[in-house]
């Protein structure tokens, strides 16, 4: 057993006996992941939208029936659920009860308006707190409206472009033809892969990586504590290399981080949380790279701080800032705006991105890009920290 591992093993025993590391490394992330996923899960059902629509058809004609048929075919695709009501009052009551979020009201005269033609309004009444449901409901009615006017717009345009004006018989033929011809466009669905974590796994991963940066502090701050308590000179007087002293603490920090992450991944996979971490090899790579980056960054903090307290405080500020930036509490930025580019400076963001890339049953190799970036973080900050720490021990 080398000097470095002996130092690490001794410290590890001490740290596990003092329950602080267990509280920060395991109890805190586990309980917060559970609370946050319960709270957020209660508010948003995995960001899906349950479209419960109502229909009040007071026109009761072929045209209003066509609208109902259009809605039914969308219902068959599983996009919405439709309930028919005989009167507006019962549909309104259903909204107040929370049974539906939106209803269509078709007053008498729809078919007459289409045939005449004259203006007609389809009313969409939605719960004020469900704006997206109402927006989608409105869009469906608009598409129906566009479909109805297509035929007449086609015939009308042809008539305008014909001189002298066409005979009524010609228009009759066109009306028939226009009704037969289809739309000029088709929308094709492309299903994307999912590279986004579900609610529970998101918070399991985000809390794990957030507290990881505090957990490894118990290791890297050890050097400063030895310095404060006066045991460092004695350690340096022993026949061991200075690098061994530094790497002993780094090994300890790495071990604490790995223990914490492993326990968290296993514990959150079990009931009641049942997080779905992706391919095990990919998760393992991300965890190792994530722990290394945390050790490196917190090591750098320790190397520039004067006292363990100072390092602890500065470390907390950096861990909280990087965590917030990395979206451990809520995702930051939308699309590719400045804020979402800024998040890429945070190892937390890369860890979460890597875990996201593994979601939806991807191969373990999907984790490689994020793992690479995390290792780069570890290499850059770790090297700087090592230079600073060695110089400090020499003085």
């Amino acid at each position, binding site marked *: 057993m080398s000097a470095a591992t002996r130092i690490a093993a001794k410290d590890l025993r001490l740290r596990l006996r003092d*329950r*602080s590391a267990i*509280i920060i490394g395991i*109890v*805190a992330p586990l309980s*917060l992941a559970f609370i*946050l996923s319960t*709270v957020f899960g209660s*508010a948003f059902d995995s960001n899906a939208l349950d479209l419960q629509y109502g229909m009040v058809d007071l026109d009761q004609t072929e045209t209003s029936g066509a609208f109902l048929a259009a809605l039914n075919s969308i219902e068959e695709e599983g*996009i919405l659920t439709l309930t028919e009501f005989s009167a507006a009052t019962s549909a309104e009551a259903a*909204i107040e009860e929370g049974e539906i979020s939106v209803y269509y009201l078709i007053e008498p005269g729809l078919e007459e308006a*289409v045939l005449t*033609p004259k*203006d*007609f*309004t*389809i*009313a*969409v*009444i*939605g719960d*004020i*707190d469900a*704006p997206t449901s109402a927006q*989608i409901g409105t869009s*469906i*009615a*608009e*598409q129906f*409206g566009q479909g109805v*006017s*297509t035929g*007449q*717009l*086609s015939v009308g*345009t042809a008539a*305008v*472009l014909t001189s002298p004006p066409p005979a009524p018989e010609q228009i009759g033929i066109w009306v028939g033809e*226009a009704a037969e011809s*289809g*739309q*000029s*466009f*088709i*929308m*094709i*669905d492309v299903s*994307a892969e*999912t*590279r*986004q974590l579900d609610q529970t796994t998101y918070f399991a991963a985000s809390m794990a990586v957030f507290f990881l940066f505090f957990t490894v502090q118990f290791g890297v701050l050890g050097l400063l504590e030895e310095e404060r308590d006066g045991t460092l000179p004695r350690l340096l007087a022993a026949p061991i290399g200075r690098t061994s002293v530094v790497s002993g603490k780094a090994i300890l920090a790495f071990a604490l981080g790995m223990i914490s992450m492993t326990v968290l991944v296993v514990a959150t996979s079990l009931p009641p949380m049942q997080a779905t971490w992706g391919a095990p090899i990919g998760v393992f790579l991300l965890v190792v790279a994530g722990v290394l980056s945390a050790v490196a960054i917190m090591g750098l903090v320790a190397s520039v701080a004067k006292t363990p307290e100072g390092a602890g*405080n500065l470390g907390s*500020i950096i861990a*909280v800032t990087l965590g917030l930036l990395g979206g451990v509490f*809520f995702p*930051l*930025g*939308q699309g*590719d705006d400045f*804020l979402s580019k800024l998040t890429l400076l945070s190892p937390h963001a890369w860890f979460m991105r890597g875990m996201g890339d593994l979601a939806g049953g991807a191969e373990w190799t999907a984790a490689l890009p994020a793992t690479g970036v995390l290792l780069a973080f570890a290499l850059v900050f770790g090297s700087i920290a090592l230079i600073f720490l060695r110089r400090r021990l020499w003085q």
Partner: protein
Amino acid sequence: MKVLAIAMNNLRRMLRERSNIFFVFIFPIAIILLIGAQFGGGVEPAVGIHLGDDGRIAVEIAEEIESDDRLDVIRYEFEEDLTTAVERGHIQGGVFLPAGLDQVAASGEQVEIEYVARPDGFGAQLQQVVAAAVSRVMTPVTAAQFASAETGTDFFIALDVSASGGVPAPGLTVETSALGEAVFPDTLGQFDLGAAQQLVLFVFLTALAGSAALILTRQLGISHRMLSTPTSIRTIVVGEGSGRWATGMVQGVYIMAATFLLFRVNWGDPIGAFLILVTFAAVGAGAGVLMGSIFKNDQQAAGVAVVLSIGLAALGGSMIPAELFSPTMQNVAHLTPHAWALDGFAELVRRGGTTADILPELGVLSAYALVLMVLSAWRLRVAITRP
């Protein structure tokens, strides 16, 4: 007088610590800013668009989708970026407008527009909104294709006619109206909701984190030394409690003033808002002193403080408004003082209430504070008189 001295000393100790300046004064404002920027004014569903070329039809469709102010529309230069953004959940859906739409349409063929969404989420439902915008642009195109085929006129001339709005066709309009009273009215400022949520989160967090200082005071024997002076236990207990309370008040008043000056946050009736802060800071002080007298190790206390203050804040509606919770979770939320404080702010800010309207909330918070203070006084008395 001695109570004041102990209290002021606690406040000074907190302010001397440089990292506290960050966590107590800078960090809360930064979070309020970020949350306001991200979620303020509601979250609109986001859709991405990729244009294959800048032909007439493609540009019109893109502009039509962008004109919907209930959508957050982002244009992507590269197809892969759009697909990745959908996969990662940064946006809900993506529209690909292929190159050469104009030529395909002019030849009388059907144009194909791809819409990409993830199987989870509500991208598939959002497709209806995109499809409506597309059909508003494509209905005149359909008409122009028909007219061009029937009359032999150039397609683009026919399109000018059909898109001009001069051809009579039944105007089937859709009128949307909303029912009920909005939980979050339009008058709610971008930062209003987040400011109140973060105020209660941080005042409570700072109070609990203060327990570490109390443990240190006990560990270093300062409490014992104070007892050896002609100072009653009652004075020490009240002094320690007042110190935590004063810290909460300083932070709370600072957050209110700073967010009002920086972001014009509306805190409603000032007396009511101040009273919520007074009672809530007292709850925090009680909890902080209780923790400080139960725990022996300040690092353990700090860990538990983080879990308790973030956990209770999340349960109490400081992260997602409790109004959005399921009924069961709303009941759970009201076991936390946070939910009552936030209800009070909601009454003042969203419904223009006055102090009289928030008496129930103030009552519950006072009861919390009272119970916690009695408990903490008892525990602290035990802790500092133990040999």
